[in-house]
Structure formats: C-alpha cells, structure tokens
C-alpha cells in the first residue's frame, strides 16, 4: 500500500529530504565527528579540551536534536521504508552497482544499530560528558573494538556510496563520465573516513598518539 495518496507529492519531498539529510547534516556531522575525535590521536589533553568545548555548546539539547537526532531518526526510518519497497536482486543480476545498492541498505542498517548503541553508551551513558579515559576504558574491551571497527566502516561506506547516489539522484553528475568521477569521490570519502575512524578506534585501544609528534 502506498504510504501517500496517489496524487500527492509528499512522497517525493520525503524522498528528497531523506537523501539530503544523509549528506547534510548527517554526512557532514560524521566527517566533523571523525575530525574532532581524531584529536585522540594527538594527545589526551587536546582530546579532552576539544570534547569539552563540544559538550558545552549553548542550547546543546536543541542543537543535537535538530542537527543530529531528528535527521538521523528520519533518515534511518524512512530509509528502511524505502528499503522495504525494493526487492534486491544482486544474486541474479550481479553487477557491481547492484551490489552497491544491496550494501548501501545493509550498511545503513548496521550504521543505525551501531549509532544507537554508540549514542546509548557514549552520549547518554555518560550523561553527555565524555573524557579520554572513559572512552579508552571502554575501548579496552576487544568486543568494543570489533563493534566500532564494523560500525565506523559501515558508516563510512554508507556515506561514501551515498555521496555517489546523491550526485546522481540530484542531477549533479549526469554523464557517465561525471557519474564515474562522483563514484571516485565517494570512494575517496568512504575510504578516508574508514581510515580515520579505524585509526581513532585503535588509538584509544592502544593509547596510541601518532599525530602527537608536532604538539610539543
């Protein structure tokens, strides 16, 4: 059953918002989040300073809700609705882009579960205050590490591939050449985010500060 009346354009608008929200604010936030967390690779003090600043922004709950929670919830739930309307067929038509279609859905689900858990443990569990020591303590648990590696990779893939989808679905990259370039751009973003995320996770686990060399 269609979710909207046959003559309604609501579906179109929701679809477009779903697609947009994946890039802005969610995608942008992911990049920013990886950026600020990368201070963990610099030094404990720097990390605590940066996270402290972020945790003390004015109107915090409102900003978090507007920029993160609501878009995230909408992007995920409406995304799952979209998923439910499709019928994957990558086994019978095993083209690469078709596998990407399937992966985009599963990484989305994985990212949703991971982010939920991540928020629960890191945001609400600590009542909104995160310090290096606390995270490092969590990350000592190898299961945490595995979950984070999976989660960060899923989020990064979802963003990278999503950027390519976005370029096509918003009519930005039209010619095959442009779409090819957009795919590369997505791949670079995806791989870049994955590498940064993995480095941060391992940094916490091993108390590793590879970027701290130039602090002193």
């Amino acid at each position, binding site marked *: 059953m269609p979710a909207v009346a046959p003559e309604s354009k609501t579906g*179109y608008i929701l679809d477009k918002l779903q697609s947009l929200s994946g890039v802005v604010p969610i995608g942008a936030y992911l990049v920013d989040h990886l950026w600020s967390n990368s201070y963990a690779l610099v030094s404990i003090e720097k990390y605590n300073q940066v996270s402290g600043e972020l945790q003390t922004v004015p109107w915090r709950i409102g900003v978090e809700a507007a920029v993160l929670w609501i878009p995230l919830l909408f992007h995920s739930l409406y995304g799952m609705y979209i998923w439910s309307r499709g019928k994957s067929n990558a086994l019978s038509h095993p083209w690469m882009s078709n596998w990407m279609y399937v992966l985009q859905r599963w990484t989305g689900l994985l990212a949703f579960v991971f982010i939920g858990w991540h928020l629960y443990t890191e945001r609400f569990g600590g009542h909104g205050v995160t310090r290096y020591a606390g995270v490092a303590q969590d990350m000592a648990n190898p299961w945490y590490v595995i979950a984070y590696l999976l989660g960060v990779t899923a989020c990064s893939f979802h963003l990278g591939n999503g950027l390519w989808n976005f370029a096509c679905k918003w009519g930005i990259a039209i010619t095959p050449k442009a779409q090819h370039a957009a795919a590369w751009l997505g791949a670079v973003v995806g791989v870049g985010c994955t590498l940064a995320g993995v480095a941060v996770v391992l940094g916490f686990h091993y108390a590793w500060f590879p970027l701290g060399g130039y602090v002193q």
Partner: protein
Amino acid sequence: MADKTFIVRIKRQQRPDESVRWEEYELRYRPHMNVIICLRDIAEKPFTQSGVESTPVSYDANCLEEVCGACAMLINGTARQACTALVDDLEKPIRLEPLTKFPLVRDLVVDRSKMFEDLKRTHCWIPIDGTYDIGEGPRMAPSVQEKGYPLSRCITCGNCLEVCPKVNQRDPFVGAAIVSQVRLFNMHPTGAMHSAERLDALMLPGGIADCDNAQNCVKACPKGIPLTESLAAVNGQVLVHAVKSWLRGE
C-alpha cells in the same frame, strides 16, 4: 551421423492461476539458430524430451530484429530479447522463463501494459495543434538530435524494469524507460514548453524519486540507451522544477 542436439528448459504456466511446471525439449541444432527458432521447432513438434505430448509454447514475438520489443523474456536468467539470443552463444541447457515484474498471461507471455499506461501518465508526447499543414517544425541543432535519437529508440521491451530492484509489486515505480522518454520530450523545442506536466507527474508516487541508483537498467537495455544519464538528468530537472514552482510559482 546423428544430428547434434541440445536441451531447452521452459517454465510453463497455462494460466496465471495455474501451477508452474518445467518442460524440457530436445532440439536439433542448426547453425545461426536463435531462441525464436527453438520455440517454433517446439510448436512443430510439441513433445517433451521424455516423449510426453504438450502444447506449443505461448510467447510474444513480432519483428524478430529487435526493434519492436515484443519478445523480451528471461533467457538463462538474463532479461533480453529472444530474437537476438543466438543458440551458439548460450549456455546449455537453455533456460526460458517469463519476465517476473509483469503479470503473467501464459507461459512466456506477460502483460506489459503498465508501461504504456505510464507513458500516458507522464504525458510522453509532443502536443501539436493539429495535423493540418501549418508549416515546418522547429529547427533543431544536430547536437540535440544526436542526443535525442538514441533515447527515441526505446522499444518498451521492459528489460530495464525487469532488472530494477525498485520495480516490483510493492512499488509503482515507472522505471527507467519512461523517465528516459520524459527526458526525450523535454528536450524537444515544442515538448519543452510542456515539460512541467511531465515533471509534475514524475513527482507523484512511482515517480523519479523511487530510483535508487542500482544502475541495472542501463546494463539490461538491448538498445544501449544511456538510461542512467536520463535518470540523473530528469532528477535534476524535477528538482529544479520543484524548487522553482514552490519558491517562485514558475
């Protein structure tokens, strides 16, 4: 010397509400055979490999040179036209099934009227004032013609819909073929005057937003139509139209 033979397996279903059965036929090989010739051989001797008398297989076919679009079916799992499916190039046994995204009529025949209905829904035509002699058509740059002509070769075979994960019973998505036609008509000087009607139609359920960029369509198109290019182009057009009409009433 015994003739060289090969096996064709066909998914049969006498009516939409009857059960499916698979039949195997052993056919005599000749050079340059295609799937149509196989089906005609069966019609001439409708006896399965085990000697059971059956009926000729129902299938759609017309031009037999891949320009009418009628004979689309799944051949060894691939959505394609039967007339250009040469026996020499196919893995044996050859497996024939009807397309799965359209209501089944019988055997290999499906009902693709959805596509024609969607062409209607999206106003895929150039509205002319009449057939009277009122002079020449608009001038058109050769570069526009060279972009438009490949799009206008779409034979409405339905292969792009068949392979699309977003075309199924749950979703009324019109599919790449129709979106590409919208692009064609929006490209024409007269058609462009009425592009808003088509773009509006593509904002409704089943419209362009349902495309999720699996990009299977372009690989299944027997005519090599740049369908993904059309989808992206029309996506942009719809978006610009939506924003302009919302913000500025244009």
